[in-house]
């Protein structure tokens, strides 16, 4: 875990992924919320596995309620991705509403990793990210940022 001195903290960057449970990350965010002037920027990092899986002609989606399997098409992949993003945004909205906090929600795909530099360019920022991100290619980009990174183990 790499953490900076938080006394001059201005912004919190929260990196979230589809598979990282939000509550654990949010607890880490709350610890930094002593100063209400802190800004919260949430970066949702979506991987392209849905699209890759959907590009295969034989991929099927097996229904949870059984016997309703359908082809997993690019359109379906797009919809699944969109649903996941929406769900994440709504969860965050609820949490920030409770904390009376404004937040910005950005979506980055893996191949847009370089754009993260545009968001993180201040030394007083801190980046909170799930530990699983360490295994992702984008983590290389994150380590090049000028801000400290707090990796949170989201496995409970």
């Amino acid at each position, binding site marked *: 875990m790499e953490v900076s001195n938080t006394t001059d903290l201005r912004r919190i960057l929260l990196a979230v992924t589809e598979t990282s449970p939000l509550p654990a990350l949010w607890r880490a965010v709350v610890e930094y919320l002593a100063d209400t002037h802190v800004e919260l920027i949430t970066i949702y990092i979506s991987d392209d*596995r*849905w*699209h*890759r*899986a959907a*590009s*295969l*002609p*034989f*991929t*099927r*989606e*097996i*229904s*949870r*309620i*059984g*016997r309703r*399997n359908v082809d*997993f098409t690019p359109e*379906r992949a797009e919809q*699944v991705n969109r*649903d*996941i993003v929406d*769900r994440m945004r709504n969860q965050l909205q609820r949490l920030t509403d409770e904390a009376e906090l404004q937040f910005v929600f950005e979506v980055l795909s893996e191949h847009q990793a370089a754009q993260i530099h545009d968001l993180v360019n201040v030394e007083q920022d801190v980046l909170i990210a799930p530990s699983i991100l360490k*295994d992702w290619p984008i983590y290389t980009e994150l380590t090049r940022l000028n801000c400290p990174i707090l990796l949170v183990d989201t496995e409970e």
Partner: protein
Amino acid sequence: MPDIREYTPELAVPAARLRRACEPLTSSVSLDDEKRDEATYLGQQRAVESLRFGIQIDREGYNVFVLGPVGSNRHELVQRLTEAQASEKGAPDDWCYVNNFSNPERPRALRFPPGQAAEFRDKMHSLIEEIRLAIPAVFEEDEYRNQRKSLEAETQKAVEEQLRRIEQRAKKEGIAVLQTPTGYVLAPLRDGKVIDDEEFEKLPTKKKKSIHAAIQKLSEELEARVESLPRLRKQHHERIRSLDREITSHAVSMLLEELKADYRELPNVVRYLDDVQKDVVENAQEFRQEGGPAIPFLRQDSSAVLASYEVNLVVSNESGKRAPVVYEPNPSYPNLIGKIEHRAEMGALLTDFRMVRVGALHQANGGYLILDVHRVLGRPFVWEALKQALFERQVRIESPAEALGFVSTTTLKPEPIPLDVKVIMIGERWLYYVLSNYDNEFSSLFKVAADFDDYLARSAENVQAFSQLIDHRIQFRELLPFAATAVAKVIEQRARRAEDSERLSMDIRSLDDLLIQSDYWARKRNAARVSVEDVVEAIKRRDHRLSRVEERVVDAIRRETLLIDTSGTCVGQVNGLAVVGLGDYRFGHPVRITATTRLGTGDLVDIEREVELGGAIHSKGVMILSAALSARYAPEIPLSLHGSVVFEQSYGGVDGDSASVAELCALLSSISGVPVRQSIACTGSVNQLGRVQAVGGVNEKIEGFYEICKQRGLDGSHGVVIPRDNVKHLMLAEEVVDSVRKGEFAVYATQHIDEAIEILTGEMAGDRDANNEFPEGSVNRKVEDQLVRYARKRKLFLEAANGGEQHD
């Protein structure tokens, strides 16, 4: 024509016998309870004894039918006697209707000792409030949360385990298991990353085939595992429900145990509380809901669930009090049997056990129910329902339409309540006799008849007792005290109302009316006491209020529109007397009766009957005349007469035989040619032997003729012939009595038609002598001679018609 009073002095009724006065009576003494009871029951000893018997005997079918005329104070007496008996019985049990959880369409009836049902209702209300708070609280407790969390974790673990096994196997095969919001996707991996179609195409064919095969196999396995997940979830829900039941049951049983202990002597109540406990546990979810449902009509409101534990208290008695005495003035079906109300909701009519309403039978259960017979019989279905309840000894609340099978929709069938009630029905005599004759079940259910008397014998002892009854009524009605002379006048009026100088009317309603109206006139003159003048004023004013029609009749006679002669003589014409009844008021007036006779074949025509204006009794009277004529005057010859009798200027119906003396006199006058005095009127019925018999309304009849004669000027020739048997009924107005005393008017009492004919004609009627002949010149001789002449002429006619052949 000799003076009538000189000719028949023994027939004139002395003035002293025309009205039996009452000596002034001491009154206005406050009555103690015993005296008041005696006064109240005066003259009704038979009815009171029957009522006491009927009320006290505790056997099936011994309900009471109180017979008696309206106004005989039946209700007050019945109420008083039943309340006295009810005081000796304790208060009956209370009843509630509660929900039947296993079959809500059949609400259960719960019985409680008196005074305890209301307490039970309140305890149930408090209990439900406590449960409403206790159940959500128990679900908020850490113990419950931990147990539930543990169950959820176990289930989750089981589900994840299913998936984890697949994922592990997939990983070995180089396949990723991706979770979408609705399912799973299997995709090939390369370097831990899902590959796309371009990368896949670059793979060797063998590899591609192995990936295909692996995905196919994993899909099948995944599908099999997915299909097992609902069973896991179902098991989970069952375990959660079981936990909820356990938690709720524990919480509820703690609250209910105390209540069950309170009612351990009432097994039905304890059983009901067991059902409540079971139902609360089953519906625990409803107690956990806060606020109303999101879509009210899609889900049952929790308040409705709470309402199902309410108690509908239908009969509540107070411990230590007497048995109920209920008088139901409007015994309609719902008021007597009860009803099931409905409420409109979303266009449908709904009901439940809380809307069961009981009737008078329930309220009187364990006590006495007083009903008016004519009201019971006049309201649809009530009589049958009452009999059914008494036969079954239980009250079953159902709508009449349902009882008759006209309704097919489902409605409530509340559990019947056992019935132990004494029904006392009050009605007029004819209703009792009609029911006795035409309803076979009546005598099985109403075995006791309490027959109220209309009259009281006017003995000295009874008169004194009646004065106490008057005192009681004065106190009851809170009237001014009555002077002794006023009380005496009231008693005289009671005899007048009874149409009998030897009896007193027991119509308490009309007695109260006279007392109240006398009190009014006394107060009007600011008197502290009601005087005899006030009583006279009350009678006079009442008569005046009701006498419009009487005045019209008198006026018509005065103006000679209605032809009535009060002087001179006339053959075949007699002043009869009629009585008109207009509600509670009656008056008499003279009616001209004429008769014509000629040679005929023995026919006597009653014109009233011919035109269907005569009643059966009147026709019977006229037929008796024909028989009387034949038997008396033509026993051995054919009655060769054609006679007709008619009430002149009578345009309405005529009934009764009270004019038969007058009709016979008119006939005899017509046959004999002897004229009849028009200054005398006549009333009375006659039998075939010429015996004059009593009739009704004699006072009104005499007064009616007196009024006409008075207007034309009384000269001593005027009077009325009445049956001797009616003398005891005379209670004439004091004005008439005074007039008789002065010799201006007379009342003659006759026992035989001969006496009447002598008074009316002033001639001797005549008795048969040793040769069986009437005296020469007597009226009867003239009648007989004429009838013999008719017979001979008829014989001659018949001989001529048959060519001179002789006939006997």
